[in-house]
């Protein structure tokens, strides 16, 4: 189910006259987060000598981002998702298209990270602690990429690939703040999970601060 809403917010027109490309704007507010937080028992039926018992997903957070006409990144952005204590760290990573993400293994056992998501299908094969070069993947198509480990079926992570450099992840209370935004008209999107993205249009004038609670 995809929830979309198109609402236009016109910021105070009587703001100080702004020159083109002038002072930056800010959007901040709070996202109403879903209450979902799952825990699961690790399957270790055939590994008597095992570790890990119950794993929990991190508390829900949302991603707030602006879509518009932004200049491309000057350098190839890099990011990393570690495998530590049989978990992805972070469990949610947001990157701009064209970002190369490294997947270092910090556990003393093999991991085998893969994704079948349409936005990026890959399989890194089995690799060990401190593998050199660090296995890495370029994410060049916007979309949701669900990460899994072939060996540890409870491991799950998400990379949200966005075609914009203007994004932020809320805190666990849903608070967010996007700053340093150029004036203009944008689509403001709020990603809650792989099935739910909220959308609205905002107009930003220079040197303004917009308070916007979502949805």
């Amino acid at each position, binding site marked *: 189910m995809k929830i979309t809403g198109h609402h236009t917010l016109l910021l105070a027109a009587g703001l100080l006259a702004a020159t083109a490309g002038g002072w930056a704007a800010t959007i901040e507010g709070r996202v109403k987060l879903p209450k979902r937080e*799952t*825990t*699961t*028992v*690790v*399957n*270790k*039926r*055939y*590994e*008597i*000598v*095992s*570790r890990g*018992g*119950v794993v929990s997903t991190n508390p829900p957070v949302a991603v707030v981002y602006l879509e518009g006409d932004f200049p491309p990144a000057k350098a190839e952005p890099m990011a990393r998702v570690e495998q530590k204590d049989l978990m992805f760290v972070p469990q949610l990573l947001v990157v701009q298209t064209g970002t190369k993400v490294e997947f270092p293994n910090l556990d*003393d*056992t*093999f991991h085998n990270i*893969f*994704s*079948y998501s349409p936005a990026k*299908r*890959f*399989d*890194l*094969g*089995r*690799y*060990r*602690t401190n593998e050199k070069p660090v296995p890495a993947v370029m994410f060049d198509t916007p979309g949701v990429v*669900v990460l*899994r480990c072939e060996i540890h079926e409870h491991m799950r992570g998400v990379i949200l690939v966005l075609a914009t450099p203007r994004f932020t992840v809320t805190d666990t209370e849903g608070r967010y703040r996007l700053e340093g935004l150029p004036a203009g008209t944008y689509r403001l999107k709020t990603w809650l999970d*792989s*099935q739910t993205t909220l959308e609205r249009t905002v107009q930003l004038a220079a040197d303004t601060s917009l308070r916007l609670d979502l949805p």
Partner: protein
Amino acid sequence: MKTRTGIIGATLAMALGSASPGQEALEQLSDRLNFHSRDGSMQLRLSGTIELEGYAISDPVADLVSGSADKFFNPRFGLYLDAQVGTRGYFFAQGRVDRGFDPYYPDKQTEARLDEYALRMELSEPGAGRLFLQLGKFATVVGNWTKRHAAWDNPFITAPLPYGNLTGVWDVFPVPSVDVLLAWAHVSPVGSAPAVLADKEFRLPVIWGPAYAQGVAVAGKWGRFEYAGELKAVGLSARPDRWGEGFSTMERPTMSARLGWRPGPSWNLGFSASTGEYLDRSDHPRIPTGLSRHDYRQTVLAHDLSYAWHHFQFWGEVYAARFEVPRVADVDTLAYYLEAKYRFTPQLSGAMRWNQQWFGEVTNQAGESRPAGRQTWRVDVAPTYRLTTQVQVKLQYSLQHDRPSRERYTQSLSAQLTVRF
């Protein structure tokens, strides 16, 4: 036929549906099957698999697959429970609905079984070497195949040769003479295909699949070494309908152990040993005077090895087994397999396995020496395609050669669709 097509169609529709929604539904179902106690001290997870298998086989059908038809369909539903109790306790169970533990001919009735259930407790303190105690009905600690025998993890549909190739040793009667042994092994006279099929329910392999027998196990880890020992009520070769038998003062348990060594993450080497009785618990009036069924023992020595690097995985095991037949002859056999798997793309992988088994010679009263079983080799090839993270399709072609045999080569083609949630 309509029912079979309906089951396959419904499973595919559920699994794939309109691809993404089907996948989402399975993932949501998986997430919703997690439960916990109010204080969080106990967590439960239910999961399951639907396995649809089809077999096209030539006579005589090899291994533990039993089919009076040359083509048959074998559906299976598995339900799993994993429970974490506090920080040290773990309980798991596996229930299945199918037509027998091993693929069986279509006229066998559908049955529901509790194949596995076990409670595991960690005895060690954090930071020290790990030590676990496990009680229940569970897979053997011997070898390395049991860790990947489940349909989703196994690169093949059938088990390796040591886990299914039948010897001439029975568990319902002790071998009375070498000539009878050779007849039961279909070595002399060379058995026809119907004869090979007819006595399949009596013959034993070296180790029967994962050997989910009742027992108690202790396992641990110390540095790069892993160790495990188990006491089971029945032996490694015991058939599935004996796995539920418990300990009794009249019986002697089977003792098995494995010592493993991991020189690095890529390698895992292990040595296993097992000794126990192989005759079933009936009275066995044909046992010669002065002997009891406790004298009919099976002893197994095994070595296993595995290696993994990036998209390549390799496993190998060799089993040396002796079935003691007092006053007749010992039946010695050596079986091994080498198995490799390579992932070509994120969703497509292929595996190949070479299996071989030899038997030691026995001498009859006429002074003729012959191998105590058919010398066998088999090659298995199996591609696997994962449609989603919850659905995979596997094919397997096997070519087996037995000597002596009326049909020197037997073939089988099988397909398996697995949906998990």
